[in-house]
């Protein structure tokens, strides 16, 4: 979904006015007396401060305690949050958001444009030292890089409150997907008076003041988070779910057992168990696409092995891996084999036709791989020696073992290197690897969240794939009326150069209580809001 003109926006505002309610309970549905929802967290929540949080799990909690300019619905489409709608200037660089006047903080104060200004400056301010400060840069907000570098004061950030209910944002380059980025937790407003009064303790239960549909009642680190309905929320009348609890359970199998014992309404299904659970609990086991992509990154940079500088070898490695086996025999959770970088379910994105993906079957790919290896001077008798590095996890290990076996037949002798997460990451960022397991989860529902990563200037391009044509395509996409053909071109370049070996596209594989309604079904970011949930009577 793209919002570019005022016309489109007013149409959006109109459409939204009709469905501007929280839980969308169809007529005739009987609600259960018990409106509580309990979900699973793998780890302790690291921070409840929107500008400090860096985790997906933290965001799941934050979305209930705070509300940004826009929310997403079950299909990943934008719906109004604090902002009702917005206008964009002719040059696409100035956004003016019209904020609703009935939004309230949980202490009763009105939510104003100034609260957003404060929060955004706070995110960029070096004194906050936020690990997500770069998100302001990613959003292209004017002066963000200079403020982060300490060269300008936070007051110079390109965001200003025209009045209490009008927020104006200036960005440096037009970004077609700018509104989508506003769903991210780090852009949520915070209340200056509370943050300044309590310092680091402002996020404690009882102290935290938010503008979301829920308030924080209890937070026992690594044990549970309890949230209850916030009566000052502007749409509180339409919020059905009274209480939301998050339980931290560090072991995924243990979480499943407790789900089956009725302690939770939603848990992840451990790899390999989906087929069995789907058979036993057809109404509860679900698999939906999830905005992450699993690859083996190849080090094509200076510190990388000589063999990987040869595109024939890179292609051969990619061709020889049988993704169907990995997805169907190891993961077994509805993940999709991938032959490109961008997740297949990303909005508006359609993978271009690629010869190796669409015109060959696996046997042909292996044949082609052997040919390419032979041309490059390698064969099973004279194999190329490479290491494949992965971070500690049973699944990564299984996939790596399978991949190394598949690569053996074409003359690649793979040594598996297992490292603990931090060391794995550190080695990748210092280019100390040949092939490395990598996954990227999109920040928003648009292809550039993947494709930007492979540009020479991205900062995450650990394999040092530097390609001028690719950079140009991605730069052009920022101002193109329709960036999609350019995104396809970028994918074609990746297929031709093969700096990464795509393995699979993620899926959310969950057990969800059959009586819980309102969780997103077609939202690749799995952005869910407690306010949309309700429990039906059985």
């Amino acid at each position: 979904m793209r919002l570019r003109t005022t016309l489109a926006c007013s149409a959006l505002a109109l459409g939204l006015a009709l469905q501007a309610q929280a839980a969308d309970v169809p007529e005739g549905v009987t609600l259960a007396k018990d409106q509580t929802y309990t979900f699973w967290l793998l780890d302790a929540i690291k921070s409840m401060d929107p500008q400090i949080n860096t985790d997906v799990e933290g965001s799941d909690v934050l979305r209930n305690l705070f509300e940004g300019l826009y929310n997403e619905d079950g299909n990943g489409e934008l719906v109004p949050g604090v902002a009702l709608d917005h206008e964009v200037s002719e040059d696409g660089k100035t956004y003016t958001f019209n904020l609703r006047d009935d939004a309230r903080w949980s202490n009763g104060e009105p939510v104003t444009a100034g609260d957003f200004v404060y929060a955004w400056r706070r995110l960029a301010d070096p004194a906050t030292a936020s690990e997500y400060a770069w998100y302001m840069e990613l959003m292209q907000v004017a002066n963000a890089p200079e403020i982060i570098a300490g060269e300008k004061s936070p007051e110079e950030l390109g965001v200003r409150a025209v009045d209490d209910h009008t927020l104006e944002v200036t960005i440096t380059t037009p970004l077609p997907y700018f509104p989508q980025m506003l769903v991210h937790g780090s852009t949520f407003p915070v209340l200056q008076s509370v943050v300044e009064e309590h310092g680091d303790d402002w996020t404690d239960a009882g102290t935290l003041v938010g503008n979301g549909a829920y308030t924080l009642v209890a937070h026992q680190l690594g044990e549970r988070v309890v949230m209850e309905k916030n009566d000052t929320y502007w749409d509180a009348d339409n919020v059905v779910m009274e209480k939301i609890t998050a339980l931290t359970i560090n072991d995924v199998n243990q979480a499943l057992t407790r789900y089956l014992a009725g302690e939770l309404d939603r848990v992840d299904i451990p790899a390999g168990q989906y087929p069995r659970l789907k058979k036993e609990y057809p109404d509860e086991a679900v698999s939906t696409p999830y905005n992450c992509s699993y690859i083996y990154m190849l080090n094509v940079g200076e510190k990388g092995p000589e063999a990987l500088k040869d595109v024939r070898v890179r292609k051969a490695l990619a061709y020889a891996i049988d993704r169907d086996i990995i997805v169907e025999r190891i993961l077994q959770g509805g993940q999709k084999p991938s032959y490109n970088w961008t997740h297949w379910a990303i909005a508006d994105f359609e993978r271009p036709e690629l010869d190796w993906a669409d015109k060959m079957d696996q046997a042909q790919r292996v044949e082609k791989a052997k040919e390419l290896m032979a041309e490059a001077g390698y064969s099973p008798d004279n194999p190329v020696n490479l290491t494949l590095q992965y971070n500690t996890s049973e699944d990564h290990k299984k996939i790596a073992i399978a991949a190394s076996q598949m690569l053996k037949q074409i003359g690649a002798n793979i040594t598996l290197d297992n490292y603990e997460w931090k060391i794995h990451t550190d080695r990748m960022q210092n280019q100390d690897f040949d092939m490395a397991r990598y996954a990227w989860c999109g920040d928003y529902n648009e292809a550039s969240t993947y494709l930007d990563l492979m540009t020479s200037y991205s900062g995450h391009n650990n394999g040092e794939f530097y390609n001028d044509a690719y950079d140009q395509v991605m730069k052009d996409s920022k101002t193109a009326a329709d960036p999609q053909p350019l995104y396809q071109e970028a994918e074609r370049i990746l297929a031709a150069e093969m700096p990464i070996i795509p393995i699979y596209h993620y899926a959310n594989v969950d057990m969800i209580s059959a009586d819980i309604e309102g969780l997103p079904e077609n939202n690749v970011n799995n952005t869910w809001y407690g306010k949309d949930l309700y429990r039906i009577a059985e």
Partner: protein
Amino acid sequence: MDLFSYILKRLAIAIPTLLLLIVISFLLMHSAPGGPFTSERELPPQVLANLNAKYGLDDPLWKQIGNYVWGIVSEFDFGPSFVYKDRSVNEIIAQGFPITLTYGLLSFAVAVIVGVGLGVAAAVRHNTLLDYVAVGVSIGAQVLPNFVMAPILVLVFTLWLGWLPGGGWQGPEYWIMPVIALSTSFMASIARITRSSMLEVLTSNHIRTARAKGLPERLVILRHALKPAMLPVISYLGPAFVAMITGSVVVDIYFSTGGIGKAFVDSALNRDYAVMMGVTILVGALTIFFNLVVDILYGWIDPKIRY
């Protein structure tokens, strides 16, 4: 030397021991690759610099150690967590440690009481059915590590029987499974040590004398045999305590108690230097303290020991 000055001397040695512990852990930790802010999304250099400045990680190591120790000595402040940024190390320990202490002490008590009882019973009824059952139970318990025990307990008591909550920390009913899981293997070890030690004591001269002068068997056991038989058990308790703290990681992971064990392991994996140091010092201090208690108990049990 009397007991009091012995304790003073031991405490005096504890201080340099702890300092050494701090310095070694600090250096080891900083020599591990990666840092608290290493993440999949590599931070722009300026953001990283801002973070390092905020947490003092841009100072030379000696200065970081110095500041750290000074913070502890002057204000008992263990610093902010680098990962749980809303919380200080003091807050994290204040929340997690009482939980660990609760189930740790309960497990300790259960392990000692049940273990000693089982061991004594087995020794007294040597080579009877009771002995075989006791030995069988303790060997069985020994070979069931807590990470196997924990999921089985949840399966049986939560999923099948529905008697107990599968995890969390909200009240006494949440304590039962963690205590069983943590105490079982220690209980088994204590039972075996007690049994063999008791068997040995029961054949010694002073017991034969006690029996010869016509004391009832109950008194012979309780008054004359139990105390000397406890000596090897006591020496086992020191290391057992440390092992329990390490074992608490498993309890925290499987029962989601929110205890300090999980925080300890996470801090190492996350390179959360401050939390890791805080817990290391805490565990170090407790280990020193427990060893002192064990040594004092020695003297009480065996009058031959002099300080």
